[in-house]
Each structure stands twice: as C-alpha cells, then as structure tokens.
C-alpha cells in the first residue's frame, strides 16, 4: 500500500518536473541557456524502482516533448527503488545526494546527467521552500522570478493540457 502511494506521488511529481522545465525555460535565463546548449534530439528516460512510474522527455525542434516511450534514450536513469525515488522527487534528497548514495544507475554520458542535475536543482529551487532545498543542495540557486509565477504557469499549463504526451 505504502509503495503504491509513493509511486502515485512520484508519478505526479515527474509530470510536474516536466511542466516546470517547460515553464522555467521561459522564466529563468539559466534554464533557457541550458536548453539553448542542448543538442537537438537529446532525450532522457527516467525510471523509478521496479515497474514504477517513468518519464520520457526529448528536446526536439525547440520543445521539450513528453513521450510515452523512448527506444534509445540519450541518457537513461534508473532510480534503484521506490523509496529512493520518493525521497528524490519529494525534496528529501537532492540529485547530487542521490549520486553520493548510489541511488541510481545511468546509461549514456555523465555530461548529460550533469546537465540534468543543474536543471533539476533550478526546478527544485522554484518548487520547494528554502527550508527544504537547503538540506538537499550544497548551494541553493536564487530564483530569478517569484516562485508563484512558476506555479501559476504550471497550473495554467495543466488546465490547458499543454504537457500532454507528444507523438
């Protein structure tokens, strides 16, 4: 039961992370710069625990598309268990801490994980309060705009089905 609840929350957070990346690309210059430098076609597959929720995203044609599946992702991360996934996606453990705790396996180039780590740190800086982020990051990035703007754009995006699966 606990695992099912954790999986449900992780699934929701993965959707929010994708939405936040889409919106912060507009709101935050550092996120925009990361996407500017991202090679077209770069893709990430994130899997959580055994048969847990997944997130497949691909940077293509200037858009971060969410996909139902990816045959050959550029970078694939597999969080080793659902409790670890829950910690990672609910602000209890940062990505660098996850690395330090051997919480995931990775296929692809380490450079792509570093790119993702920077993006996730920025997303967390907006989505989680500082009291949480201070515990999971060595240095919390300053937000360039009020976090409420990010939340508002994400809410509108979900209401308008902006983050639905791409083909």
């Amino acid at each position, binding site marked *: 039961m606990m695992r099912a609840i954790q999986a449900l929350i992780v699934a929701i957070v993965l959707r929010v992370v994708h939405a936040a990346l889409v919106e912060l690309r507009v709101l935050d210059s550092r996120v925009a710069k990361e996407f500017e430098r991202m090679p077209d076609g770069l893709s990430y597959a994130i899997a959580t625990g055994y048969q847990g929720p997944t997130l497949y995203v691909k940077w293509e044609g200037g858009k971060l598309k969410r996909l139902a599946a990816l045959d050959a992702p550029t970078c694939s991360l597999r969080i080793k268990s659902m409790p670890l996934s829950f910690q990672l996606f609910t602000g209890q453990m940062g990505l660098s801490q996850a690395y330090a705790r051997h919480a995931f396996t990775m296929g692809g180039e380490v450079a792509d994980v570093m790119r993702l780590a920077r993006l996730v740190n920025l997303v967390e800086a907006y989505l989680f309060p500082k009291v949480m982020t201070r515990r999971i990051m060595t*240095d919390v990035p300053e937000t360039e705009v009020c976090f409420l703007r990010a939340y508002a754009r994400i809410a509108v995006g979900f209401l308008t089905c902006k983050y639905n699966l791409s083909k």
Partner: protein
Amino acid sequence: MVPYFEFQNAVKLLCGELSLERIAIELELMGASKPLMLSDAVLAKIGTLETVVKAMAAEGVQPAATFTDIPVDSSLAVVDKIAAYYREQGCDSIVAVGGGSVIDTAKGVRLVLSQNKEDILSLSGLDNLVRGKHVPFIVVPTTAGTGSECTGVAVIRNDANGVKMEFLSPYVEPDAAVIDPRMTAGLPPKATATTGMDALVHAIEACTCQQANPLSTAYGTAAIRAIAENVEEATRNGSNKKARFAMALASTMAGISFSNSMVGAVHAIGHALGGVCHVPHAVAMTILLPHVMRYNLSHCGAAYAELLPWLVGVDAAMATPADKRAEAAIDAVVALGRSLNEICGIPLTLKDAGVSTEAFAKVAEVAVNDGALIVNPRAADEAQVIEILNAAF
C-alpha cells in the same frame, strides 16, 4: 556522514619485492596463457615493459601479442582498435604496464571485450552494466599517482568533442594489481612529484567530497600521511626504495579511497584542462589543488581541519588553534607544492603550464559537465570555475 554508502575493492594486490614474477601464476590461476601486453612507446623504449615480459617468461608465460602505441591521452578509438587487435591475435587475457593512460585504456578494452561489443562509446554510464564475460586482467602501474589499478572508473578522451569521458563500473577493476618497487625506480623527479601530488588530490578530495564515508576516509587519510612523509624524498632521491614503495602504496590507497567516494572540482577542472588545453593530468592536479581547496573552504572547513594531522603530523596539528587548522591544511598543501617546485621545478601556475586565459571559457564549459563536480562539497558554475582558473593562472 553520508547516510548510505557502498564500498568495493575486488582487486588482488601483489605488493613488494619480486611481485612481477608472480604475474604468470596469477594468469594461470585464472585459466589464461595468452596475454595481450599493453604499454606505451616510452616504457617499451626504456626497457620497463621488457622487465615485466622477462619476469613473466621466466615463469612460463609468453605474451601472445603486444601493443605499445597508446598515447599520453588515450582515446575511445584507441580502445576500440586494441579490442579488435586482441580478437585478431586470439588473446585470452590482458596485462597492462604503464601509467594512468595505459591502465585506463586497458580497462576500456577489458570492458569492450567482456561486454562483447565493438565500440566502447556504447558502454558509457554509471553502474549500468551486467557482469559480462570474465577477461583476466592484470595491471602493473609504473607511476605512483593515478591509483587507477584499484578504481572502478576509466577516464578516456573522446576525440570527437575533446571531452574526457568517464566509464564507471565495478567491472573495469582489474583482477590483480602488481605494486613492484622496480616499476617506479626510474621515474624522473618531475613525474614523481606531480604524480605524487595527483595521489594527494585523490586522497584529499575523497575525504572531503559529499560521498566520503568512513572506509574511504580510512584509506584516504593513510594515503595523505604516506605522501606527506615521502613525496619529497622520493622526488629528491629516486633510488630510495622505501620512499618509492611508500608512494606506490599511497597511490593505491588513494585510488581505493576515491573509487569509493569520488573526487571533486580539482578533477572536474583538471579533466577539462586536459581535454581542452592538453595539460597533463598530474600537472593540472598539482596546480589546482590549493585553489580549489580555498574555493571549497567555506563548505568543508571542518573536513580540511581533520586532514591537518595527516598532512603535518599530530604535534604540529595540535599546536595549531582549532579554528586555524583548515587554513593550515591548505597552507601545508601549498608548502608541499613549493618544496617540490624547488626540488625539481614542477609548474605551480597555469601560466607556467602553458595555458592561455583565452581557453578558460571553454575549460569552464567542459568542467561543469564533468561528473566529478557532482559531489564536490560546493557547487560551481562556469563563472566560479573561471574564478578558480584565474586564481591558478
């Protein structure tokens, strides 16, 4: 302390006198008899490789093939070429004789063969590979610095983008490493000094990064003490067997340490300097260490303070006020570098190493994508990396 850690070292260490003569039996015990010898042109020329081959031959094992065309900064293409050569020659094992480049290349070859692939690029990642076929693999380090004989990582240059790629898997670890004092006896003073400092960087970063754990720190601190006590003597008097052996062991211990807790910004920036500006790894480590320590000081002062007794001895550390020990640890590293500079003229600035400030932006761009940065005690963006580079110039 990190709330969870892993520790692995499956490498059998053959340490001390007449170790080379035991390679043959180790191969035999692994069911191998046709080793591919890997080394570089310099070691082949000065006779180091021949020393190993003779020791093996005396105990009944002849190389099936030899490849010595491994450059200082080896590449993915070289790995693939050697893997194909191994198959062509019908070899059944690998014996690598050399420094970091030779050993990391050999690790890459072993990975390609054991995973039954044609190219190593398809194997990049972190802990993502299954065990694969066992390819008996012995390394004989000829420097006392990289610790690569005991690490679960191979760092290999990708010529396509000039980036040093990391292949992180326990299956790159050799079956055995041979620490024979004869192998470092002829190492020139500059190489002794810089590779010794490379080992010091491994140990210091391993003890202070986010992944540090009690076991890795035990190895790391022991390495720091051995280096602090022996690197000057080994540099000044290369024929001092005791100092040489202490340095070789220190390098191995530092390798075990960082293989189980990662390194940090010194390596991230150093890899980038190697990839972009072709600064030799050990030279980059020597130059960057004190500057990165100063950068990290605000975030890991307590950890640096704990290293002081290992760097300067217990009495000197205890005579230092507690709130000054972290800075004293950095001062000790600076003093060690200066001393080695006086002994043999190793470069202490990027300027002396021939780096141009025009390259800093590219170095910083590459450095922030290096995996070593992820567990550094303090985050660093491109601007902060450039600050460190400017300080080291």
